[in-house]
């Protein structure tokens, strides 16, 4: 844990220094820019609440990717699963009306079903035809993108709108806000707690982790690899779908074009930089959300375009992942040297 913390913090610092160099080259003031960035995302209660809310889709897709990668399946279909979840939740919200107590869980279940449906397609292709989920999920992303675009342009199009979008969902399905604090954060934390508990304390989670580390060992030990594979794909799809549902229910209350933004790919990056750790995913998710929320303030105050954050994020991922390997070697060497000194002394 300690080692992870050091490599994480060191990586972030190095990447941010790299970012500062890029800013200097372009004639911006790095200190001012970073100050604006963090002030806008962490400065007061309102910004903090916004950051937490922006972290919701990032952390949920990040968890989806972390659980999948740590258990073996290379599920890269989070973008598609997210928009399919969002679409199903939207459709539910348009045609069903229940009291909020039932409506909100119902829509969440629909969103999870949407995501699981889409990852289930990839899981079926793997189980029946032995097609690698790595490519199929990527292709399904593009297909889901066009499919949802079609759905909001024709069958569920809001006739009063000028660009492709659905009408707003029933108000009973809107997630409540407590002042500035958004209740989607509670849902996300709940999902995180469940995933963490299942993954670290349940038999199923143990089997998944073992399968991810050594599938042959897991199979000889009596794990049902195929069944677990399907379960992992469905779970991770449901997590990504839930992210999409929460975005709809908590934000615009309708499906707009481009609602998936880059959440899911950011989630994949978060999983990678967290080395598929569940708690690390939460922490890096919060950090990435801080950067993204602050990006807007950075653009307002210092004129650095908010797209700069995308560059910075990728740099952080590369530097931390590369640094982690190096730091491990370095620290192992130091530990070995200390040991030999103790022995000889």
């Amino acid at each position, binding site marked *: 844990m300690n080692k992870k913390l050091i490599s994480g913090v060191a990586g972030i610092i190095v990447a941010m220094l790299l970012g500062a160099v890029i800013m200097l080259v372009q004639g911006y003031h790095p200190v001012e820019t970073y100050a604006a960035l963090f002030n806008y995302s962490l400065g007061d209660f309102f910004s903090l609440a916004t950051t937490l809310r922006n972290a919701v889709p990032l952390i949920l897709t990040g968890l989806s990717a972390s659980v999948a990668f740590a258990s073996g399946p290379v599920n890269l279909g989070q973008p598609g699963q997210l928009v399919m979840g969002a679409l199903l939740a939207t459709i539910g919200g348009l045609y069903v009306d229940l009291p909020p107590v039932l409506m909100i869980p119902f829509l969440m279940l629909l969103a999870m079903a949407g995501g699981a449906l889409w990852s289930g397609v990839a899981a079926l292709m793997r189980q029946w035809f032995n097609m690698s989920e790595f490519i199929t999920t990527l292709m399904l992303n593009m297909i889901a993108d066009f499919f949802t675009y079609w759905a909001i342009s024709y069958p569920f199009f809001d006739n009063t709108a000028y660009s492709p979008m659905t009408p707003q969902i029933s108000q009973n399905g809107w997630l409540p806000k407590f002042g500035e604090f958004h209740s989607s954060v509670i849902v996300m934390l709940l999902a995180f707690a469940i995933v963490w508990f299942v993954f670290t304390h349940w038999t199923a989670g143990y089997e998944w982790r073992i399968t991810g580390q050594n599938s042959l060992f897991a199979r000889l030990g009596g794990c049902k690899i195929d069944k677990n594979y399907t379960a992992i794909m469905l779970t991770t799809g449901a997590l990504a779908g839930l992210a999409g549902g929460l975005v709809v229910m908590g934000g615009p209350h309708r499906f707009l074009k481009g609602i998936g933004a880059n959440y899911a790919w950011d989630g994949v990056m978060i999983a990678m930089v967290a080395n598929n750790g569940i708690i690390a995913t939460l922490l890096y998710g919060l950090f990435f959300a801080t950067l993204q929320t602050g990006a807007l303030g950075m653009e307002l105050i210092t004129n650095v375009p908010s797209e700069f954050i995308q560059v910075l994020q*990728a740099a952080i991922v590369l530097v931390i992942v590369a640094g982690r390997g190096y730091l491990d070697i370095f620290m192992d060497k130091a530990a070995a040297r200390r040991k030999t000194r103790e022995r000889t002394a």
Partner: protein
Amino acid sequence: MNMFTGLINGMISGATPILLAALGGTLTYYAGIFNIAMEGMMLGGAFCGVLGSYYFQSWPLGILCAVLGALFMAGIFIVFSVFLKTDEFVTGIALNLFALGTTTYMLRQIFKVKGAFTGPGIQSVPPIHFPLLRDIPVLGSIFSGQNLIVYLALLSTILVWYLVFKTRFGLRLRAAGYNAACLDTSGVRTSQIRIWSLILCGLLCGLAGAYLSLGYVTLFSENMSAGRGWISLAAVILVNGNPWGIAIISLVFGFSDGLGLLLQQVLPSQFASMVPYVATLIALYFYSVQERKKKA
């Protein structure tokens, strides 16, 4: 007849970027690198192509810049995966997102636009007409008058095949993928071979990017590679890296691209746009069925 040549030409223009990127991918495939960064290299190339063509007012310099841009991306891949030994999968994904972020950022920073940049100042790569070929009735409009990069792609297919299977470098390249330890012990540095394969991959992806932004259309839009890098990766896997196989598969994908355009008259355009991706899934299905038969 006109529709026929239209479909064929659509097929060729759809196939070209995939073919070029897949040829790059096949070099790294033989070298034993799990390279999924073609998407990012292509996107970097496409952006730098527009940049070069716009500022220097010349398409050859545009192509040169496209290649340099893709080489820059390949350089990052080399630094992380070969020198720092970062996981290739992570490097590839991060590089693709880095390319997406950087090009979007630069689009905003240099051209001051969001979404797409187009303008009369961008010089596109011209088509090449062959004097005698042009006059053959139907075939003339297929074999002559294609974009310069289309012919370069064809040439690259032959060169890549020759390089991989007929030269000493090719032998070492395949050895690097087949048994890296063995190659190292016989006195050839595997990392050196891998670096060269990545450089060549960057070069080819740069051409693919230049075709996207200076040949196919004359503009740059955010994320304009739109999954073509992934499709080219699928193409490499489907034929186990054989250059001729890649050429055929690319034509199939190009055909599905052209078919999608044609289908737009009957289907909603969104469904038509799905065609290449569905085609990839179908191709993967046949591949896995065949693999299973081989095992049985």
